[in-house]
């Protein structure tokens, strides 16, 4: 997986996403942007991370943009976890938070949103 490119800084290029595993718990740190051009990268990373069978932690503070289908993937990762396990979304930025809220996905029992910050 490429570990380069913060979407915002990447001059004239397409959206870039970097995905890193977390050190101390099951989950991923997502950095950059996700849209229709690289959604498949996010999908693949989430599928593989869900295999641990534990709660899935997603650190989102540096995910500066995700479109609706991408946020749906984050939320739907919970459906691949064993019953009772949850997806924990850490520090979603304003874009992800807005999409979660408008769709009511922050109310799902299988999804926990932590570290809400006002922009």
């Amino acid at each position, binding site marked *: 997986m490429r570990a380069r490119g913060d979407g915002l800084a990447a001059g004239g290029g397409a959206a870039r996403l970097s995905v890193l595993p977390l050190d101390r718990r099951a989950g991923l740190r997502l950095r950059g942007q996700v849209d229709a051009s690289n959604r498949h990268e996010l999908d693949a990373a989430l599928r593989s991370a869900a295999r641990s069978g534990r709660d899935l932690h997603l650190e989102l503070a540096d995910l500066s943009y995700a479109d*609706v289908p991408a946020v749906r993937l984050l939320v739907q990762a919970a459906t691949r976890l064993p019953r009772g396990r949850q997806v924990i979304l850490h520090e979603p930025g304003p874009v992800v938070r807005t*999409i979660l809220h*408008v*769709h009511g996905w922050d109310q799902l029992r299988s999804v926990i949103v932590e570290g809400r910050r006002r*922009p």
Partner: protein
Amino acid sequence: MSSPRPPAAFTHHAALYRDDEEFLEMAVPFVKDGLAWDEPVLVAVTAANLELLRGALDGDPSGVDLAETRTLGARFPQRIAAFHRYYQQHARDPARQVRILVEPVWGEDAGRETGEALARLESALNEILSTDRIWMICPYDARVMGSQVLAEARRTHPAVVRGRSIRPSTRYVDPVRFARSRQDPPLPAPPAGAAALRFTHAGELARVRRFVTAQAVAHGLTQERGWYLMIAVGEAASYLVEQGTGGVTLRMWAAAGRLACDLAGRARVTDPFLGLRPPTLEPRPGDGLWLTRHLCDTVEVRSTAAGCTIRLEVPAPRAQERHQPDLA
């Protein structure tokens, strides 16, 4: 535990009332029956009718949510979301019906919304909420609403209620047919000086978002409103690109305190309710436009054999000042 999901069950009635008594004869039994059946009841009516109903029900009975109708918002997407959210939060199990008594927003509270917009909303609800188990009665005050508005109510509600009696409306028109029968006025062309960007592929969507953000800054939007506009345009751009019909032209300009965005492409939009159906976890084409409709003041979609245009508008408080020097 294996009881089947009830069939599509949105029930949508109009109640045309001429005085307080007629209003109460319909509203009181609707609310009381709901309480007797342990069904959640939302009442969203005018301030005057809210007082009437409080008197008739001896205060605010528990199990009834009372609100002034304008607090649900005047715009189409806000109201759809309010009804759908109430259903989701209160139905508890899918077999339980929810009752909603909701009076149209009218007069000053309606702002830019008109009788035409109201009729379109009422008709569209039959399609958009078709699987929500809501029994909705919409009271129309015949003292203040014109005969044309009342005639539209009969076209947009499958039945009319008076007191406890329910009669099918013989004028009712299928919502898709209703939507297609309305003529949308053509959109005024963007000004020649509008900032423009052309794109074709998903790989260019990041460039589209940077362009929108730069324009938002140039027109003095706050950072938060700039984000909203960027994600609103992002979903519309993504929808058009995913149609695979070639290049899309984005134009942005300010006029009369508003910032407008046009996305024009060769795609053909056949769904009259694009972006108006509450999205679920199951993806459906175009459901990203739900977000666009929530974040913008107005979203207009026009589609012809030649292609389609999606036009979004948001308030741009400083736009007018900025443009005054040009007029001198």
